[in-house]
């Protein structure tokens, strides 16, 4: 079962940081990735994130994402090659050696450069989001979002969504087994997935919505919409937060100097 949006319990430096620090770091990486057009700078950001993941003891979690990212990057490169001709031609998507149709769809240096920049940005942003997801308890994320004034009703929605993702994945698997046991054979591949939608997603949504009444009552009875929390000492800013914030500050100054041409 895929771990979607699931926190990993690891005793690493990122796990001890305040969620607000990590949100700030995430924003910094996104802005930096968007501003950077130099593939080497972007590669440096990606490598830096990976080094931070090693320091945070979850490098393997990021490494597991790489095959999927490479696959998606390949799609991105194809899309760019198909839609962009800029710079010199380095080859053709359909090799010239092929009879009749050979030599069509030129691959240009501009398209490749653009695709590499997009892919590296893609890696940088997704690594930064993964870093946030893996190292932040949903409860802390919700607390941080409340601190930046997201209303409690919306943070509760987010919390419930994150909480129920694995439960509903398991429920979906049970429903799929139940329909298989009724000799249902939707077939393989994408068409099979589409055909299996109705007998699986209808019971999944119906069963999930059947929980809404009790869930709503529980929210009321436990007074969760007030969320008047006792401050917890283990969520106070620590030395790791200050180091990270200082790093972000220095990084921002260096980036500003670089992009304004001062250095």
């Amino acid at each position: 079962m895929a771990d979607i949006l699931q926190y990993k319990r690891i005793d690493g430096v990122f796990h001890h940081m305040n969620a607000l620090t990590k949100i700030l770091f995430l924003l910094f990486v996104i802005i930096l990735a968007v501003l950077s057009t130099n593939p080497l700078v972007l590669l440096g950001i990606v490598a830096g994130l990976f080094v931070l993941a090693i320091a945070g003891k979850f490098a393997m979690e990021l490494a597991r994402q790489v095959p999927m990212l490479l696959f998606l990057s390949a799609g991105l490169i194809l899309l760019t090659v198909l839609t962009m001709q800029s710079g010199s031609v380095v080859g053709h998507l359909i090799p010239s050696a092929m009879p009749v149709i050979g030599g069509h769809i030129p691959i240009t240096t501009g398209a490749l450069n653009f695709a590499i920049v997009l892919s590296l940005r893609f890696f940088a942003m997704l690594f930064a989001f993964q870093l946030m997801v893996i190292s932040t308890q949903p409860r802390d994320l919700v607390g941080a979002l409340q601190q930046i004034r997201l209303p409690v009703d919306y943070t509760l929605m987010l919390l419930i969504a994150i909480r129920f993702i694995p439960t509903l994945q398991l429920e979906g698997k049970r429903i799929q087994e139940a329909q298989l046991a009724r000799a249902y054979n939707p077939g393989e591949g994408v068409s099979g997935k589409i055909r299996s939608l109705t007998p699986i997603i209808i019971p999944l949504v119906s069963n999930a919505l059947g929980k809404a009444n009790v869930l709503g009552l529980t929210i009321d009875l436990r007074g969760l919409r007030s969320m008047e929390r006792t401050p917890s000492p283990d969520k106070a800013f620590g030395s790791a937060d200050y180091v990270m914030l200082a790093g972000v500050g220095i990084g921002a100054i260096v980036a500003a100097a670089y992009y304004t041409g001062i250095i």
Partner: protein
Amino acid sequence: MKSRDIAVVGILLAIGAILRYLSNIVPGAIVANPIIALYCLAIILIVPRVKDALGIGIVAGIISALISHSIFPPANLISEPLGALVCLGVYITLRERLPLSAGIATFIATLASGFTFLAVSLFVIASSIIPAPGEHFTMGAFILAVSPIIILTAIANSLISQILYFPSSRILMRGMAAEPPDRDRRALPETGDVPNAPMIRFHGFSYTYPQAKAPALSGIDISIEQGECVLVNGPTGAGKTTFCLAAAGILTHDYEGAMEGSVAILGKDASGYEDMGEIGKIMGVVFDDADAQLIFTTVEEEVLSGLENRGLDPHEVRRRLEEILRLTKIDHLRYRAPHTLSGGQKQRVSLAATLASGTRCLILDEATAELDVEATATIIAILNELKRQGKTIIVVEQKPQEMADIADSVLIIEQGRVTGFLGANEFFASCSEDEHPGSLPSARHAAPCAAPIIEIRDLTHQYGETLGLDRVSLNICPGELIAIIGENGSGKTTLVKHLNGLLRPTSGTVTVSGIDAAVARTTDLARHVGLVFQNPDTMLFEDTAEREILFGLTNIGRDAEEAQGEISAVLERVGLLDQRTTFPRSMSRGERQRLAIACVIAMQPEAIILDEPTTGLDLAEAERIMTILEELSRAGHTVIMVSHDMHIVEHHAHRIIRMENGRIASDSAAGTGGET
């Protein structure tokens, strides 16, 4: 926004996130985002205010960004709120005019969200590297290339939303919370928290659900004192759950319907409390669906939330956390996520979270219905301790004997009326005579047969590092009615899932009707072995009972026209012929269980497996199910049921197999206690 609406949105966004993750298999810069279909469905179902629709969009945007595999994840923070607003606007405009307004609203919202996402992504990503004049980067070509993905996603999303709208709206209509109920109240004076006032006082209380013809509760006039432990007993559908909802003030604050009389909590009319949050400081409720009461992502967080909301100082929060975790015996589970817990563990966590709120009264509505003997005993021991601490406890329980040691009184509800409010001693004295109407049926030895229908040899199943089954060998003969018993995690379900190919052996062999179940396809084995899951709702998805049965028949190649006679016959066999066109999910739990059995037996498999077929049913409904199973056994079908209800097992099974740590601990003919 009501709390239930928040729950609806959260749950649908969770499903959207799962679908969104699955959609990542589609390569490309812009991938399909089915989360839009699910937040649109949420908006269509609850029709929120504009501000709340925007909030739903923001939360959907955060989730989309966090799990996105697209070129610029933060663009979701703009595109999803916009999509949510468009959906709300279009739906409100069209809902009275067009029958497919749900699908149309989702289609337009997806287009709005998709093209906004594309525009923001291209603006941010591409604007910084627009090539110099004279070069030929064509933004238009890029947009043209990804536009088909957006349009196809819009079509898919509109189909998902429209298909789900009908069943979802019917599910949500049941117990719909809305405007304050129509009341004809003999109100009590608002006296506040009176020291010696009863914990709960019903005063001529009656309640009728919206659209119901008969009242669910009628003329309730009782008083439950502080510190009292009351067992609520009665058949399925008698009104026990409605009684709990009334006692907790939930009907007064959260439900539509017609109400007469009043309910007072600690001397103050329930309507005099500001909201359920205020009542929640006095009353805690543990419902039968423990899973739906766990909101946080770890056990510790769940319990902490109740403690932290009480405004205690941090040291006191920690001290009480440890105390509650110890009392409910879940301290070893503190870092576990809800989905990794067993049913019994979930119930204990739910109870712990309720206790953390420090309420003086606890209501448990069938909190042990789905638990095995050991887990039930743990809950009862906890309740005993809480009673000693002076808490008022109200427990709805199908198996009253479990509560014999701690109940002070027993409230009997039948057809919405209180038909008895007895001292516990008096009740259990009369009950003990009824509960053992006769001796157990004589032992029927499972005679060895020449041609077993199921043969299992040295079956081992490994879940990663954990051994699920350890060299199990077993023969099962045609016509046997077998019960497989054992504690949670003993290997019962793992064993039966090998019989229809849902699990494959790590080693050993499983042969069913001469077919090697280790290699045969599940869909082929389904013709020989039928499986009825514990929760019938796992399989039911059609609009009518007959279509539900037809689904299985068409899967094995039967013609829909020719199958009509078989459908009638099987519906008659399970006593549901008059419900042929009924929406399955509007049936009672017992009826849905019988329909699930009908779906399987219509396919005429040689063997039928049932996982906990009588869970959550009263004695009469359970006996009805067992009568059907006995008839099937007599007709030559092999019936295998996994059960922890020893009353059912001892009275009906021909053979009892007890599992322990992945092995068969005993295999005996019913009533003999000896090995065969």
